[in-house]
């Protein structure tokens, strides 16, 4: 079934297999092919009813990420990195809050690579020995992040923003949680979340869609998957207030960093989620980007070093609006942000200009094999479907609607972290 991103001239071929696996193919005029195979399972799936059971359990922090590492351990086939390397392809994997992705990128041996990707991810091999071996590696990864001020800032912003939500748990876990993991824990999570009905494949680049779908169908037909298991994640109610407003962490930095997060209730105001995210992103840019009077003033008054970084992060029931800077006077900077945040002091002209920027960034998504692939993956985990109408949504954005939305937002729930 073919669909097209409206006004972007990018085709997407979609098929859902009998076992529930969803497949998206985006042919692009490149030699290389980029294939991702993802499960809708990440660090936030920490309390659930395991497949075949009836009661909720809570799993160890960092398990989704640990499981991702262990998928590369194989007994029935060659080690994945070596296999893909021998085919001249690059391979990797990553874990986020809401998904885990396994991928390869290569020019040759597409059928062989694609079959291998599906096979190794669908054939876990966890033993006491190989689980123990991984703990040392992940401990080093944790230490690497513990030495990085940016990672510390980000982790603590999340930890302190949420009272109950699993978004407060670091994706990688911590040393204690990692060393407590067993192979049984890994199998429990794998068997619950790695059924094809909870997974999807996205392939972009120099690919023949019919060929790709044929390969995947044949591959999946040879495997016996019982009926789709129900996945019941515990619904965790998150309050609007933050867990900890202020944290200061000493790393002996010359110039401190401050991250400020405004926790916004996602259900406020009757507007589609995707539009709210665009408006919030625009809002942050207009208020704190280099086009703003705020930016000019804080630069002039030496309140920041370098640029203001801002982002909006969706966390199911809430959005996090994050602003971070380097500043020798972080509390002064915070004070200025708090004075500024709720003011509607941007013009319609500035707003319309930002729309032009969005428009062009969507056009340019087809300039490499990775951007559209990522876009599709994010749409699936965030919206449950691919938003082919995204260009129409951007065209539809209007200043007055945005102003009305912003006026209804409560900015009084915020937290900040200073790393100094």
């Amino acid at each position, binding site marked *: 079934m073919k669909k097209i991103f409206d006004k972007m001239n990018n085709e997407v071929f979609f098929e859902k297999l009998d076992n529930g696996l969803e497949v998206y193919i985006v042919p692009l*005029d*490149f*030699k*290389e092919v980029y294939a991702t195979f993802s499960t809708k399972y990440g660090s936030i799936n920490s309390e659930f009813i395991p497949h075949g059971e009836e009661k909720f359990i809570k799993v160890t922090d960092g398990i989704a990420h640990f499981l991702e590492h262990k998928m590369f351990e194989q007994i029935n086939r060659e*080690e994945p*990195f*070596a296999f*893909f*390397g*021998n*085919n*001249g392809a*690059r*391979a990797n994997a990553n874990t986020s809050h809401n998904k885990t992705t396994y991928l390869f990128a*290569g*020019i*040759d041996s597409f059928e062989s690579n694609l079959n291998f990707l599906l096979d190794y991810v669908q054939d876990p091999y966890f033993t006491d020995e190989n689980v123990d*071996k*991984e703990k*040392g*590696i*992940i*401990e*080093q*990864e944790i*230490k*690497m992040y*513990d*030495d990085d*001020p940016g990672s510390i800032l980000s982790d603590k912003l999340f930890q302190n923003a949420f009272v109950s939500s699993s978004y407060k748990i670091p994706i990688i876990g911590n040393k204690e949680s990692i060393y407590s993991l067993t192979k049984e824990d890994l199998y429990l999570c794998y068997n619950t979340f790695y059924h094809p009905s909870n997974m999807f494949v996205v392939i972009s680049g120099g690919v023949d869609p019919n060929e790709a779908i044929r390969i995947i169908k044949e591959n999946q037909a040879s495997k016996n998957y019982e009926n789709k298991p129900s996945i019941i994640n515990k619904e965790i109610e998150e309050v609007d207030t933050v867990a900890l407003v202020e944290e200061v962490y000493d*790393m*002996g*930095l*010359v*110039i401190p960093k401050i991250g400020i997060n405004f926790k916004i209730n996602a259900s406020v105001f009757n507007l589609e989620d995707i539009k709210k995210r665009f408006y919030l992103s625009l809002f942050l840019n207009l208020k704190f*980007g*280099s*086009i*703003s009077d705020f*930016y*000019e003033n804080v*630069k*002039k008054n*030496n309140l920041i*070093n*370098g640029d203001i970084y801002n982002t909006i992060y969706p966390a199911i029931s809430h959005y996090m609006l994050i602003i971070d800077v380097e500043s020798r006077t972080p509390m002064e900077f915070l004070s200025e942000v708090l004075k500024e945040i709720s003011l509607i002091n941007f013009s319609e002209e*500035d707003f319309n*200009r*930002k729309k*032009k*920027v969005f*428009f*062009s*960034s969507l*056009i*340019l998504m*087809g*300039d*490499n*094999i990775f951007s559209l692939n990522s876009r599709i993956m994010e749409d699936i985990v965030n919206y449950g479907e691919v938003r082919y109408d995204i260009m129409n949504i951007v065209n539809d954005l209007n200043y007055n609607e945005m102003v009305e939305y912003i006026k209804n937002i409560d900015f009084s729930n915020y937290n900040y972290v200073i790393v100094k």
Partner: protein
Amino acid sequence: METKTIKLNGFDLNLIKTNKFKSVSVNFSFRRKLIKEELSKRSLIAEILLESSFKYPSKKDLTRAKEENYGQRISSQNYNTGCHTTMEFNTSYVNPKYTDCKDNKPFLDLIMEVIFSPHIDSSFNEEKFNLVLKELKEYMVSEKENTNKYALKQALESADKGEVYTLNNFGYMEDLEGLTRESLYDYYQDMIENDILDITVVGDIDFIEFENYFSSLKREAKSEDNNFEYVQKVKENFLELKEEYDSFQSKLVMIFKFSDFSSLETKLLVTLYRIILGSGTSSKLFLNVREKHSLCYSIGANTIPVSNYMTVRAGINKNDYEKAKEVILAEVADMKSNISIEEFEAAKKLLRNSILLDDESVNGIVSSYLSEKNYNYLSKEEKLLKLENATIDDLYKLANKIKLDTIFLLEGVR
């Protein structure tokens, strides 16, 4: 792809037509001989020109102009290649045919304004000068906080402090003493007038339009300095040093030097060597140091052929130092006589694909084009042919010309 190089008034205009991208990219590359004392000035210029311009005297105004041009991106960077240093300005924008602009002029006008029409009264605007100077100083004093970069810096300086290949690309605090906006502006004018300049355009473009546009830029013709390769002084015995640092993880850096490499070894074979030893998840270092011995999370080898050296870097526990050192050196020794046919063929495939993929990104296209043009690197076809004919013995021969020079440990004591 269709290409054309035109020698205009004191610079080369390189035009590369491809309809692979919906964007148009223009790269301005200013290069000259690397002199330590000039690095900080070049760093300041790369920043100050992006703050504002004569027509757009504030960052806000300049940002507005970029947004008006559909989010045109403009960036700058400095980097060193052997004995040369290069300041690059890059701009990319959506091809005008997808917009209501009738041609490339508004986009080209903006990047030309940024580079060639700075925000000056008699020299650089004082407020902007003070801002970028302050920020560069702040960057320099906080350099130590990035343990990866700091460990590398300390390793290089331990090996050969002051030598051109050890210099960073943003300059040194002592060279900022006494610098004024006037002296910086004088240097800028000298750079604009006397650096070797390449302008490279990539996209679905009309050659005539760009040739006509850039014909108005006038400079004196420049003579090329082709001495960019740095020849290493090889030590009799390697150095081994440690420095304590307030961090959880320790950073291990090993420096190896090359001597008497042939042109083919420098331009191609050493990359094959690097892939097998320590590039990516199927390399000897990754599979043995990390996967087999669990000694690290990140490990890799990086070769800098123009400066004739290689680094191996890993993040480890300090208690694993001796073991990590032993395993890494064993893998390096293996490269002299124990490369399997599977490893070799896999690396050839990876490198072959990497060469083929140079055409699939703007950065790859520009970098390959300029390397071939300015540094006599092999063309894509030549690389593929020579790669096809490369043998394991070629790599053994190369491996025997690589010598350990320095081992440095930034020892995390937290």
